[in-house]
C-alpha cells in the first residue's frame, strides 16, 4: 500500500488517471487540448504525462466537438472500452446533452439491461476565479436529476483521487465534477478508491449539521471555526456523491444535532439541497427541533467582477447566519 502524501487536487487527479489507465488496458482518455495546452496536461494539468506513458493511441486530443464526442463515448462504452472524456468546462457539456442524457444515461434501461456504459465524463464546475457566466456554472443538480447518471463532487484531494478511481471502475455513466477553484487545494491522498454513496464526516459536532460540497464545504469548515469560538459545534457532512447519495449519514447526524443546514454553490432554488431537506423532513421529522435552512447560489448567472461574483455565491458569513437561524 502506498503511503499517504500531501498533494494538490490536480496532482491527485493526475495520479488517479495514471493508476486507472494502468489498471484498465481498455481505458482511454480524450478531450480538447489535453496534451497540448500549458504543460501538456490540459487546462488544469490533470492529463499531464499520460500521453508519454500510455501513447497517443490512448490519449487523444480532439476537435472542439462536444456534441459528437459525448455521443461517441456513450456508444464506445457499450462496445467494450472505458472512455474518460474531459469536457473543459461543464458549461460546454450543454452542447452534447443528447449524448449524455438521451443516450448514455438511458442505454442500459431502454435496451433491457443488455449494455454496460462504463463512461466517465470529467469536467469542472463552480465559480471563484472570474470565469464569468458561461464558464462558472454549478450543474450538479441538473445531472443528479437524470436517472441513469452517477454524479460525483469531490471536496478534497484525497477524495478526488479515490472517487475518480471508483468512477473509472463503475459500469454506469459517471459525471465527475471537479471544482475549478480547488485544483490547487492541498491535502492528504492515501491512493485508495473511495466508494460511491458513502458520505464523509468532515467535522464532528453536536449542535447543528451542515451538509455541503466543494467550495461551500470549505466555507463551512471556516464557519465552523468561528462558530466554535462562540460555543456552537457544527457537524459537517460532505456527501461526496450526489447520486448515489447517503441520506442515512444525514439522518444519523441530525439524530445527534437535531438541526440541519444544506449548502451548495448551485442555484439554491430547485437545487439538490432542497432534495436533501425534503428527504430529511419526510424521513426524520421527529429528529428535527427546527426547520432546516438552505444556503445556495443566487438565481442569477455568475457575474464577472469579483465583488459581483462574491455577492451571488454563499459565503462563510451566510453559513454562519444559516446555522444561527436554525438554532434560534
Amino acid at each position, binding site marked *: 500500500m502506498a503511503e499517504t502524501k500531501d498533494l494538490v487536487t490536480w496532482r491527485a487527479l493526475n495520479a488517479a488517471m495514471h493508476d486507472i489507465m494502468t489498471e484498465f488496458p*481498455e481505458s*482511454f482518455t480524450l478531450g480538447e487540448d489535453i496534451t497540448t495546452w500549458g504543460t501538456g496536461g490540459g487546462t488544469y494539468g490533470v492529463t499531464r504525462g499520460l500521453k508519454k506513458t500510455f501513447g497517443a*493511441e*490512448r490519449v*487523444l486530443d*480532439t*476537435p472542439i*466537438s462536444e*456534441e*459528437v*464526442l*459525448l*455521443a*461517441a*463515448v*456513450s*456508444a*464506445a*462504452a*457499450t*462496445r*467494450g*472500452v472505458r*472512455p474518460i472524456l474531459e469536457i473543459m468546462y461543464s458549461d460546454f457539456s450543454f452542447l452534447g446533452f*443528447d*449524448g449524455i442524457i*438521451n*443516450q448514455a444515461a438511458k*442505454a*442500459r*434501461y*431502454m*435496451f*433491457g*439491461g*443488455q*449494455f*454496460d456504459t462504463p463512461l466517465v465524463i470529467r469536467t469542472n464546475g463552480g465559480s471563484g476565479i472570474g470565469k464569468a457566466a458561461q464558464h462558472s456554472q454549478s450543474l450538479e443538480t441538473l445531472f443528479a436529476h437524470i*436517472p*441513469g447518471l*452517477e454524479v460525483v463532487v469531490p471536496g478534497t484531494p484525497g477524495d478526488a483521487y479515490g472517487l475518480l478511481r471508483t468512477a473509472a471502475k*463503475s*459500469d*454506469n455513466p459517471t459525471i465527475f465534477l471537479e471544482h475549478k477553484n480547488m485544483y490547487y487545494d492541498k491535502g492528504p491522498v492515501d491512493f485508495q478508491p473511495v466508494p*460511491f454513496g458513502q458520505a464523509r464526516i468532515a467535522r464532528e459536532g453536536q449542535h447543528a449539521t451542515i451538509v455541503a460540497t466543494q467550495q461551500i464545504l470549505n466555507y463551512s469548515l471556516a464557519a465552523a471555526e468561528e462558530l466554535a469560538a462562540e460555543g456552537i459545534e457544527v457537524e459537517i457532512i460532505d456527501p461526496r456523491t450526489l447520486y*448515489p447519495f447517503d441520506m442515512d449519514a444525514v439522518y444519523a447526524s441530525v439524530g445527534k444535532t437535531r438541526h440541519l443546514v444544506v449548502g451548495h454553490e448551485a442555484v439554491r432554488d430547485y437545487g439538490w439541497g432542497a432534495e436533501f431537506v425534503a428527504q430529511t423532513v419526510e424521513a426524520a421529522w421527529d429528529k428535527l427541533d427546527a426547520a432546516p435552512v438552505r444556503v445556495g447560489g443566487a438565481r442569477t448567472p455568475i457575474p464577472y467582477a469579483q465583488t459581483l461574483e462574491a455577492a451571488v455565491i454563499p459565503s462563510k458569513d451566510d453559513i454562519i447566519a444559516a446555522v444561527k437561524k436554525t438554532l434560534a
Partner: protein
Amino acid sequence: MAQYTAAEQGLAGLELMAKIREFERRMPLLSDEGLIRGSTHPSLGMEAIAVGVSLALTDEDAIASTHRGHAHTLAKGADFGRTMAEILGRADGYCGGKGGSMHIGVKEIGVLGTNGIVGAGIGIATGAALASKIKGDKAVAVSYFGDGASNQGVLAEAFNLAAIWKLPVIFVLENNHYAQSSAVEEMVAQPDLSKRGEAYGVPSFNGDGMNLQEVFELATAAVERARAGEGPTLLVLETYRYLGHMAGDTEIYRTKDEVEQAKENDPIEKLLAQLIEQGVITAEQWEARRNELFAEVEEAEQFARNSPFPEAAEAFTDVYAKGA
C-alpha cells in the same frame, strides 16, 4: 466476408427483403388494433438498403439505427419474433418491453439501438468505430440516417472526427425525400447531399437505394476501406417510403400518384424479375417460397401476441448496473 453474387445471395437478399416487408406491412394493422403504443415507423420500399448493407457485415460489426429501424435490425440478424415482441411491449422482446419500436437494441449482433432522436445514431456509430480503433479489432460501424437527420449539427462533427481519426464507420444516408412531412427540396439548398461528406474529407458516393446489388457493392467497398484502416465513407442512397411517416399519417404533403410512381421502381419486384430472367427461380417457386416466409412472419406475430406483458416491477430494474 460473404461474397455476394446475384445468383446465390441475390435469392437470400430477396427472401430477407420480402420477409421484412411482410413484417412491416403488419405494423399499421397492429397499430390500428391498439397493440402498438406510441409511434411506429415502417419502412416499406426501403428494404434494399438495410439488406444490402447487412449482407456486407458480420455479427461483430455494429449498427446504429433510426426511429425507422425495424428493417435495419432484422436485416442485421435479429429474431423476427423477439423484435415483434419488443414492438408490442412484451416480456420476450429484446429489451423486455422497455424499449418498444424506437429503442430496440440487440447486443450480441451489434445492434446499438433504433433511436428516438433524429441524427443521434450518427454520433453513436462514430463512437462504436472509435471503440474498434481503441481495441484494435476489425469491427466496422454503420450509421443509418435520413435526409432529415443530415441537417443535424452532429453530422458535421462526426464527419470531421471520423475523417481525422480514420474511424471504421460507414454513414448510410437513406434519402427517402421526406423528413417526417418536410420535402428534402424545401429543407436543403444543396440537393447533392454527398457533397457534405466530401467537404469533410469523407469519400462519398451516390447510389440507387432501390437496387440490392448496387447497395451491396457500395457497402462492401466501404467495409473493405474501413477494415483496411482507410477511414469513413458516406453512401447517399436514393429511396422512397411507401407508407406515411408513422401509423396514422394523413400524408397531405404528397400525392398518391407520386407514391404509385415510386412503387414502379420496387426493389423486391425488380430483383425478382432479374432472378426469374436469370433462371435462379421460377415465378411458381417464388410464390411457394414467399408463402413460407409469410408463414414465418405469422409465427413471429403469434409469438409476440402470446408473449406476456412484463411485470410492473421490471419498470424499476436496469437503471443502474447491479451492485452499484
